[in-house]
């Protein structure tokens, strides 16, 4: 037990990378996802179908595979990046597919009647987007979006496969040294849980509140 206590700081150093990895990928994926969602909902048929298929492809790849592809693929294309950068790219790509679906659902949930009402008071297409659709879509997407962040936080552990020194990787390395998996795993479980559980409570409360207000929360 004493042995383990000295290793705790080493494991916890991984939190920093976990947070960077998760937050950066998530925000990038949000931007990409929003972009794809808007294109999909507001473009003419051929373009929106293409984007729809793109999101389907992105959602069809396991994260582990995406990370491995980026990790091995980039050097082949002549690009040398630190592991964490490859991980960020991999997570961003896969998550943007899910976020596009999330935002698309939220936008469609706002509904055509809102658009009609917006036009009827004289708003232009762009005005309708900005003042009527977007604010409502954001609200509706909030619970799902927060939930998505907890997913990214947990999935960041898969970056272990390409040697990123995030929380899980550190735990495994320590476990291999002290020949005990239990303590490191319990420690990181506590850390992950204390990040994810509060977020999920907030997300649930938000969802309930929105539903009570009559919003089609995704």
């Amino acid at each position, binding site marked *: 037990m004493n042995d383990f206590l000295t290793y705790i700081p080493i494991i916890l150093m991984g939190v920093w990378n976990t947070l960077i990895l998760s937050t950066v990928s998530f925000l990038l994926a949000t931007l990409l996802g929003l972009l794809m969602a808007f294109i999909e909902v507001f473009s003419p048929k051929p373009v929106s179908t293409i984007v729809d298929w793109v999101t389907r492809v992105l959602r*069809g790849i*396991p994260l582990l*595979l995406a990370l491995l592809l980026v990790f*091995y693929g980039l050097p082949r294309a002549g690009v040398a990046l630190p592991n964490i950068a490859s991980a960020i790219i991999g997570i961003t790509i896969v998550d943007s597919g899910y976020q596009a679906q999330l935002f698309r659902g939220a936008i469609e949930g706002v509904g055509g009647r809102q658009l009609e009402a917006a036009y009827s008071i004289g708003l232009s297409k762009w005005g309708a987007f900005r003042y009527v659709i977007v604010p409502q879509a954001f609200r509706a997407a909030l619970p799902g979006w927060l939930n998505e962040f907890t997913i990214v936080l*947990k999935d960041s552990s898969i970056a272990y496969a390409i040697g990123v020194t995030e929380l899980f990787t550190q735990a495994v390395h320590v476990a291999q040294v002290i020949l005990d998996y239990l303590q490191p795993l319990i420690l990181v*479980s506590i850390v*992950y849980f204390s990040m*994810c559980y509060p977020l999920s409570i907030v997300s649930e409360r938000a969802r309930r509140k929105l539903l009570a207000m009559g919003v089609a929360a995704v």
Partner: protein
Amino acid sequence: MSFDKLLDLVNSYGSLLLNGLLTSFYLTVSSYLIGFTLGVLISIARTYGPRLVKALCQAFVELTRGTPMLVQLFLIYYVLPRVGLTLDPLPAAIIAIGLNSAAYQSEYLRASMSSISYSQWEAALSIGLTKLQAVREVILPQSIRIAIPTLANELIYLFKYSSIAYFITVSELIYISKFIGSRTFLYVEVYSIIAVIYIAFSIAATEVFKFIERKIAIPGLRISTRL
């Protein structure tokens, strides 16, 4: 990356890849079934069970959903031996992924159970069904119907996530691919091939489920798709 190299790969290692794919399928379906069965039990326990059972189930679900699947996988494979339960990689993966899926499936079912209006429950009791019968004959059939889109998604999701069994040396598709890659150094080529396999499966499975959903929908009752 040339087309010839790809073809070569498929020729020489096709059967190996097929084995990996079959292992992945087996892994996915087994864990899904465990997840579904346990999920149903947990959702019923959490909605209708005594307080202690409810609390234990809730603890299980929250802890499982609040920690990475990888952590749970490693706990089952590397830590259980300490209490005398040593498992081979594949069974360990099936159990770990199955338990994880159970936590999520129980939540989907619980949500759909609570969306069924209380009056269905009242009506069931009013003709003399016991609570157990009411759950089995009236609440559960409707809950599962409502939860089907989400449960179908879960299966497709599991197919992708079962790949984490890679980390404990299960010979599923990605693990096999890495092996092939280490032999031929054509990592990107192999990974690209299986990426296509995964994508094709996901898209095909989604379409199949949409079709099934339409077929078994209760006539007249429109079910909203995303929970």
